[in-house]
């Protein structure tokens, strides 16, 4: 399910079936022009990723709206905020909360994170809509889906 009116109406009526949430976290920066295309393509691909995962498991999983943080900012500060999001979600209740990212920088903070960190090695792509990329994403998505299912 997604954070949209139609899905949330369904959610409210079937809360007992939906116990898993995913927060895609995305870096934002504009100061390093040379890295702009990398940052933006990461964002696009992670969004496709998140939507595909949601699509496979939409009856049990809620896709939380994207969380943005400053790419070169203070991760400790961000993590505290992120933990507040997690707390808010867990209270509904959600049994499993995942944070989805391509940024390996979060690995260091994993132990202080209240959510489960789902770190995926990012990949570069010229065109996020190409068939080739879709294929690649699909392959990885099914791995991630397996991983999430192992928590159930």
């Amino acid at each position, binding site marked *: *399910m997604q954070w949209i009116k139609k899905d949330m109406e*369904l959610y409210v009526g*079937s809360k007992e*079936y*939906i116990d898993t949430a995913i927060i895609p976290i995305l870096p934002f920066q504009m100061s390093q022009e040379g890295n702009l295309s990398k940052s933006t393509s990461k964002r696009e691909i992670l969004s496709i990723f998140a939507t*595909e995962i949601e*699509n*496979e*498991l*939409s*009856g*049990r999983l809620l896709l939380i709206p994207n969380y943005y943080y400053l790419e070169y900012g203070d991760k400790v500060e961000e993590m505290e905020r992120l933990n507040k999001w997690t707390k808010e979600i867990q209270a509904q209740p959600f049994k499993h909360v995942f944070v989805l990212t391509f940024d390996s920088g979060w690995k260091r903070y994993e132990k202080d994170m209240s959510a489960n960190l789902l770190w995926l090695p990012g990949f570069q792509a010229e065109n996020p*809509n190409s068939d080739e990329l*879709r294929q690649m994403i*699909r392959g990885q998505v099914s791995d991630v*889906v397996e991983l999430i*299912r192992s928590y*159930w």
Partner: protein
Amino acid sequence: MSEDKQQVSRRQFLNYTLTGVGGFMAAGMLAPMLRMAIDPVLQSTSSEGEFVNVGLAVEDITTTPQRVDWQIEQVDGWYQSKPGRSAWVYKDDNGNIIALSPVCTHLGCVVSWEGNDSHPNEFFCPCHDGRYTKDGVNIPGTPPLAPLATYEQKVENGILYLGKAISRKGA
């Protein structure tokens, strides 16, 4: 002082203008809604209903369901997206092609063929253990209350085309 005065009137002017723009936008939103209400014929048919080549040759279809994925071009207002579609395709015992929507009729997860080792020869939904027989009919006692939808289909030059997914009544 005089500059001050000018500032205020400028601000007021901008405020008026914005109110005007807001009104204009409201009118802009109402107009299409009215049009849709008045004239259903004007409703555009989305490309969702069209037949799409899903990249599968009829001769490659076996009696074991296989998953095909494709994209449709969807324009929803000004927002253009490429949502994915999938189907489970196989030939039944009479050689008829069956294309089932993989969307679980319970809450919408994607089911898979023989997705659970303890339930062979069935479609399985990983979310709440929903189950369906091979023809897509839900198995009573599991959460789904209706069979999987079937796709409209046609074959041209030995290639499978799929159209709209048609839902079926509960078993």
